[in-house]
């Protein structure tokens, strides 16, 4: 997918620059773009290191497990078909907590493990998603992140006075999107046969 998008970006830029006569700007964009990618990587490096370091320490202390346990009653309501002690529910809790804490590298393997468990417990034909799978994937596509560090680091680089002042607006938007997606998933369940 990204192969096509990237190729499209370069080709469209070239054709567009030929038509609009902006070849000089395009030529210098190659240079400045490549440089600013490296610059971006270096300026955000400090905050990214600090944050992953902090979260690593929190994980060592078992923060993910602790929050996952707190989340489990709520998730039990969202996934009524899963048993209380089912490994699927445990993996789902861990995945959502990791997402919430912004532990992207940990969240994906946990999510894939959750999908495997859901498949084992599924009673629909193989190759089809059951309601629990759909809800879990939807929860992931609209997952909450408490502190989107990289985005804040970007804002800092481009002159935000207080890069983190954006957080309440992000929380409001993120929560609304999550509620909308979960409601939609629950309402649509009946109209898409298994």
């Amino acid at each position, binding site marked *: 997918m*990204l192969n096509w998008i990237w190729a499209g*970006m*370069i080709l*469209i*830029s070239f054709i*567009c620059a030929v038509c609009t006569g902006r070849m000089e700007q*395009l030529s210098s*964009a*190659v240079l400045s773009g490549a440089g*600013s*990618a490296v610059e*971006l*990587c270096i300026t955000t490096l400090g905050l*990214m290191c*600090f944050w*992953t*370091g*902090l*979260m*690593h*320490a929190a994980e*060592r202390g078992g923060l993910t497990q602790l929050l996952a346990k707190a989340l489990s009653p709520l998730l039990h309501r969202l996934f009524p078909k899963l048993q209380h002690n089912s490994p699927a529910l445990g993996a789902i809790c861990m995945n959502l907590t990791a997402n919430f804490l912004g532990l992207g*590298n940990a969240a*994906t393997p946990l999510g*894939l493990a959750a*999908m495997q468990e*859901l*498949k084992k417990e599924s009673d629909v034909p193989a*190759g*089809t*998603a059951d309601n629990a799978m*759909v809800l879990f*994937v939807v929860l*992931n*596509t609209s997952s909450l*992140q408490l*502190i989107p560090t990289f*985005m804040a680091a*970007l*804002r800092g680089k*481009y*002159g*935000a006075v*207080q890069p*983190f*002042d*954006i*957080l*309440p*607006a*992000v929380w409001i*938007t*993120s929560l609304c999107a999550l509620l909308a*997606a*979960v*409601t*939609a*998933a629950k309402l*649509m*369940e009946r109209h898409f046969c298994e």
Partner: protein
Amino acid sequence: MNKVGIFAVPAFAAAIVLFCLIRKVPVFDSFTEGARQGMKASFTILPTLVGLIVGVTMLQASGALDLMADALAPLMHAIGLPSAVAPLVLMKPVSGSGSTAVLTQILQQNGADSFVGRVAAVLSGSTETTFYCIAVYYGSIKVHKTRHTLPAALVGDMAACLIAPLAVRFVFKQY
């Protein structure tokens, strides 16, 4: 209300340090270990970022990005979004690094504290790479019939587009 965000980060850091002390985790050793992983991760995405940021910068310089924003302007205005964030709305569901590149471009052009810059930051912080996520998760267990997954996920993304400008107005009293 935007003070909450400024408070959140130091408070969260302090809470984690305290939590680690209570749990008897060697806090600084764990920190440096994790920071080293973070450093590696940052450098790992550098090639991807170089490719995509050059791509987006070229689109901007050639005028293609402006053309696209103009073409989508009526649609964007209908849902209350500034037209400059159109490329972000299109890129975010597909690629995380790609949307970082687009966000970089928007912040550079408009400033991070402008209305457009803030709405773009909120959108990128509150939505996920929907298509990518669906492909990876279902691909791993070979499910092809995804039923209502995509429509429901897109309802979430749409809701984020509708709410983001309102949230920025509400929190910053900015138009």
